[in-house]
């Protein structure tokens, strides 16, 4: 295998990853810059982090974003999992084509259209714009991503396990919670995390559907970026990156542990 992994392949990977990571690394480095100029290094300092925590507007926005993220990711995970089950298990029902279209289209729909259409809906039904409407909007577009993630796991799911449980007399609901759910749980967890980060990240849809008093962190960052690049934003971005990175690393370690445990169990079962 090593002979086929040529120098060309290694170079392209190294360059590719440098391209992917260099901007983020530079952003983090300059958040510790003493100088107010973002591009001139003036010594190490954490003063921007201190001033960040005294910026009430930014802290409020962070709180709003975190709440919207948790609520919308949780509801989206439930709805997305149901949608994934529908897509994989019920191959024939009325309006299935429309349903799969509605699940897949939001994945590639330009955010400006999704945002505008949801805003017009909220205005039409007379819903006051604010925290609640942003959460509803985020549920709607993130549930489709959850559906795709969970669906890919359900497709490879061995249905004979479920059939065995039902043959042994387990009712369908119990079968789902005791057999199906534990097997697809890793996909559900990564679906939740994907939904959470998408919600954390979204600027366009939140800008359309938000109202006074419900400014999210991306909206706040965006309005400050338009005024100019400051180390304070770099510091805010670094914290966001750190939170997400820690979450992803914990999830992947947990996933790996579970995988190893599963392999050990399988080996034990084969021996036993």
């Amino acid at each position, binding site marked *: 295998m090593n002979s086929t*992994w040529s120098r060309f392949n290694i170079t392209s990977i190294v360059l590719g990853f440098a391209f992917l990571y260099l901007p*983020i690394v530079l952003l983090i480095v300059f958040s510790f810059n003493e100088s107010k100029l973002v*591009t001139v290094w003036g010594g190490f300092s954490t003063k921007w982090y201190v001033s960040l925590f005294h910026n009430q507007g930014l802290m409020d926005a962070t709180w709003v974003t975190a709440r919207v993220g948790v609520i919308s990711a949780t509801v989206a995970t439930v709805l997305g999992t149901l949608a994934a*089950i529908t897509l994989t298990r019920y191959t024939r029902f009325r309006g299935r084509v429309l349903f799969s279209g509605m699940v897949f289209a939001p994945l590639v729909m330009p955010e400006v259209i999704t945002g505008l*259409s949801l805003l017009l809906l909220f*205005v039409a039904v007379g819903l006051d714009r604010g925290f609640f409407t942003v959460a509803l909007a985020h549920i709607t577009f993130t549930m489709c991503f959850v*559906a795709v993630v969970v669906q890919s796991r359900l497709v490879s799911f061995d249905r004979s396990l479920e059939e065995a449980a039902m043959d042994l007399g387990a009712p369908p609901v119990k079968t789902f919670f005791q057999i199906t759910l534990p097997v697809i749980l890793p996909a559900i967890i990564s679906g939740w995390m994907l939904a959470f*980060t998408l919600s954390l990240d979204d600027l366009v849809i939140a800008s359309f559907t938000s109202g006074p008093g419900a400014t999210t962190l991306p909206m706040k960052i965006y309005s400050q*970026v338009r005024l100019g*690049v400051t180390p304070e934003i770099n510091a805010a971005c670094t914290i966001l990156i750190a939170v997400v990175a820690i979450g992803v690393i914990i999830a992947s370690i947990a996933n790996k542990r579970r995988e190893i445990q599963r392999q050990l169990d399988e080996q034990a079962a084969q021996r036993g």
Partner: protein
Amino acid sequence: MTDIAATAAPSTETATLPARLVKGFVNRLVIIIPYLWLLFFFLIPFIIVFKISLSQTAISMPPYTPVLDFKDGVAGFLAGFRELNFDNYTWLTQDALYFNAYVTSLIIAAISTILTLIVGYPIAYGMARAPATIRPTLLMLVILPFWTSFLIRVYAWIGILKPEGLLNQVLLATGLISQPLVILNTYTAIFIGIVYSYLPFMVLPLYSSLEKMDYSLIEAAQDLGCPPTGAFWKITFPLSLPGVVAGCLLVFIPAVGEFVIPDLLGGSQTLMIGKTLWNEFFSNRDWPVSSAVAVILLLVLTIPIMFFQQAQAKAQEQGR
């Protein structure tokens, strides 16, 4: 033998009857809940967008005159029908700005998609040929930037590309250029931003189709005297075509309606339809015209989105 079967049958029958009812109800709920949610929050909003794109601008809140109102019964509905007008659409055709914005968006998205493919293919290929033990790590490294905020990644490029930015500092220090390059607020910056932001979307489908490939085919071709470049274009590339199509669609479709990248990196001069819609809505507060812009954008994207759905359905079929 027959005795046991005869006595056993009714007991299982009674046990499964309520279970079956529960199952039928659960089955229906599983479909109905997400279905209704998507109908209400995805499909109906589009119908409203279409409706409002046909109404007139008004200085009020919400800033449009209602059209097709059912308050006055059928007669009012029919009266409203006569008031429907395509003024907003004629307005879009009369002002060259909108047409240019659509065309520019399509061209920018197409060029960026090709650039992303050129940048992404060697990475995906290198990953697919990497030793199997490090492949999961490489895959994780490609996905990881995707988890960090899109806005932040675009923002990071401002500091690099601006005239006194890091790229110019490096280039000036090494003596490659004597004048700082103007990259920020040009189309070049938009290309860089799109390629950078959407690279994982291109690499992942490419990787999954390249990884499945049987490399003994290439060895066979080379044994038969085919040069490496010929083997690439005759074997590797055609076999990776599903990945190429999926990756290109995943980059092209959202890139057409992109707002953040042209707004932050492209400056005020650049013309893209996502930005036009945003300005029409937030600056001009013209909801009917921005709705009309959205409807046309959706029509422009219908064909690629249908291709995408077909590719999804095919991938689903293969997954089974």
